[in-house]
């Protein structure tokens, strides 16, 4: 028997000191779960992974038709499909991560009540699945840019930063919903509503510059406004301006959601097995 073995102490209300170390130890499980979900989604489908390209492409076409051709909204000097797609990317990532993470714990209830692992792995891997979709959709954006002969400028290099903000927003909201959903199934009904509603209150089909100046700060209370504006600023370059006070407000809100989400999740996860 080695004496160097660490002793694990289980007690009521004890916050485990090696939680994050455990999370690191289970890092492979992240990828296995994400890999499972991606693999399963396209099993027994004919066109398989092409679905990941088809959905955003069709959405983009409809949005362009409605907002540009019918509603005649301004395009800030860039091809309207690119304007829409630069926003559709983060929005679809957020919405699918949000609903995926929200359902993730309940759909893995069997695992939760039978095996120990840091529960954070489950919603996190749901977010990773959406992130893979996001990367695949990114190919369409590149295709559109080539099609329209649109060259991005140096701001493009800041894009990873905004991707990170989008990731934090999706993760924070996802953790909240996942943990709440375990206890209150009401949130299963709220999620599709938020996703549907969010598409219209976020500047996906239009540029947020059409919002009157005095309302823009208020508009930025929706954290996705900051994320989408950031994406457009980085991808479209040129004349696109970032409304900094609004962006900072959105960023602050994203951080608050993420941190409180982690805290709430950690606080409730010990009882998941009892209530799920």
């Amino acid at each position, binding site marked *: *028997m080695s004496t160097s*073995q*660490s*002793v*694990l*102490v*289980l*007690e*009521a*209300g*004890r916050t485990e000191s090696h939680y994050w170390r455990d999370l690191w*130890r*289970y890092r*492979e*499980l992240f990828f*296995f*779960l994400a890999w*499972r979900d991606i*693999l*399963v989604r396209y*099993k*027994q489908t004919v066109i398989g992974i092409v679905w990941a390209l088809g959905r955003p492409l069709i959405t983009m076409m409809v949005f362009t038709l409605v907002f540009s051709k019918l509603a005649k909204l301004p395009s800030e000097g860039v091809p309207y499909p690119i304007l829409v797609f630069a926003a559709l990317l983060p929005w679809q990532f957020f919405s699918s991560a949000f609903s995926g993470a929200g359902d993730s714990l309940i759909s*893995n209830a*069997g*695992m*939760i*009540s*039978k*095996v*120990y*692992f840091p529960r954070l792995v489950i919603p996190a891997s749901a977010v990773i699945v959406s992130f893979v979709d996001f990367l695949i959709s990114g190919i369409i954006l590149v295709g559109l840019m080539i099609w329209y002969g649109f060259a991005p400028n140096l701001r493009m290099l800041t894009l990873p930063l905004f991707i990170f903000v989008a990731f934090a927003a999706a993760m924070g909201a996802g953790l909240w919903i996942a943990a709440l959903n*375990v*206890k*209150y*199934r*009401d*949130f299963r009904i709220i999620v599709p509503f938020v996703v549907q509603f969010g598409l219209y209150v976020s500047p996906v089909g239009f540029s947020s510059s059409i919002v009157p100046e005095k309302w823009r700060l208020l508009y930025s209370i929706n954290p996705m406004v900051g994320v989408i504006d950031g994406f457009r600023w980085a991808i479209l370059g040129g004349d696109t301006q970032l409304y900094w006070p609004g962006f900072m407000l959105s960023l602050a809100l994203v951080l608050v959601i993420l941190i409180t989400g982690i805290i709430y999740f950690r606080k409730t996860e*010990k*009882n998941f*097995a*009892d*209530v*799920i």
Partner: protein
Amino acid sequence: MSSVISVENLSKKYIIGHQKQERYTTLRDVLTDGAKRFTHKLIHPFVAPVNDPTHEEFWALKDVSFDVQQGDRVGIIGRNGAGKSTLLKILSRITEPTSGKISIKGRVASLLEVGTGFHPELTGRENIYLNGAILGMSKAEIKSKFDEIVAFSEVEKFLDTPVKRYSSGMYVRLAFAVAAHLEPEILIVDEVLAVGDAQFQKKCLGKMQEVGQEGRTVLFVSHNMDAISRLCSRCVYLDHGKVVNIGPTPEVMESYITAGFSHQNAEVIFTGGEDKDVRFISARTVGTDGVPKACFRSDEDIRVIVAYQIKRQLSGVSVGISMLTAEQTLLWNMTDWEEYPELLEKREPGTWTCEWIIPANILKPARYFIACGAANPPNYYHYPDPFAFEISSEGTQRLSYKQFGVKGGPIALKMGVKTEAISGQNNLQEEECNVQ
């Protein structure tokens, strides 16, 4: 020896709802409850709110303490609802205790269910990786054991078939194979042996014995007393969330069995079964002299007299008794229609008695159980709890039983023996014995 698991005053409380069927609350309930409490406070500010009658506390475990030493194979026994599974859930960190403390030294792997996280759409190969990762193995570890796992599971041919097309036996074999190749310092197992065919069960039990012999610690919950007695050196007996007995397996098992079933009485009155078409009323064990008793000599016949009631005319029904050892291993069973084939055709309503005779000099001196039962598979009628009787070493024909106490096997048959010298000087006296 150092203790690898030490459990101190462990308790776990559940709140059980009486009215609501759902285990989860809805937001509406929380809001209305909150509003109710708030209005209550407004109206009666000094009266404590009444406890919600729809919720009741339930202690699944209460002040449980024990230690497990390195390399121990510990069985956890107890009736349904004794808290065994809750204990394992806490030990494997699935849920946290309400109070008390547990210290664990070493890596724990728990197997509360085989095939946790198996996905029906994935192939056998993919599921091995996924399930391994869920149980805490690293990818490299799974890779290095992949061939062993496949060989153990016996599903080589179907590795690239989605497991939804597997037979349930194949599914379970694959799932157990992955779990069996975990290499933790402490292994926690909950009744997974109740799967697969007899041969595979034997293989599983063998694998677990192997794990124990490697000096690793095993905690094993099962209702299969036979498996427990073969695998475990020590036992913890739980009842209603409390520890009743801890110690060497035979001792604890004996106390569990005697507590769990009807006491040793010359006559037993059965309860329950009022809603069944066949209901057992009573049973008694009597000696050849007709006197009811619970302890018999080895050389006397035991008459088992069972009274039962038939409520309506039935056909195809067997009424019988099963002989069980103290470990609840079935020795044999016997139905009444073997003697009266016409009873299988038709049974008239009324109260009946049936007498079975257990011949002398068959069973070794020990405690045995008799279970009564009536069935027309798949219909089962009344199955009362088994009751006990004892055979003493008095009057036994076996010298070894008299001189060295009870040894080996449940049967005390005296076989014929013939020994003779083929070469050498001494002509051994020929001896011959027959079964009597």
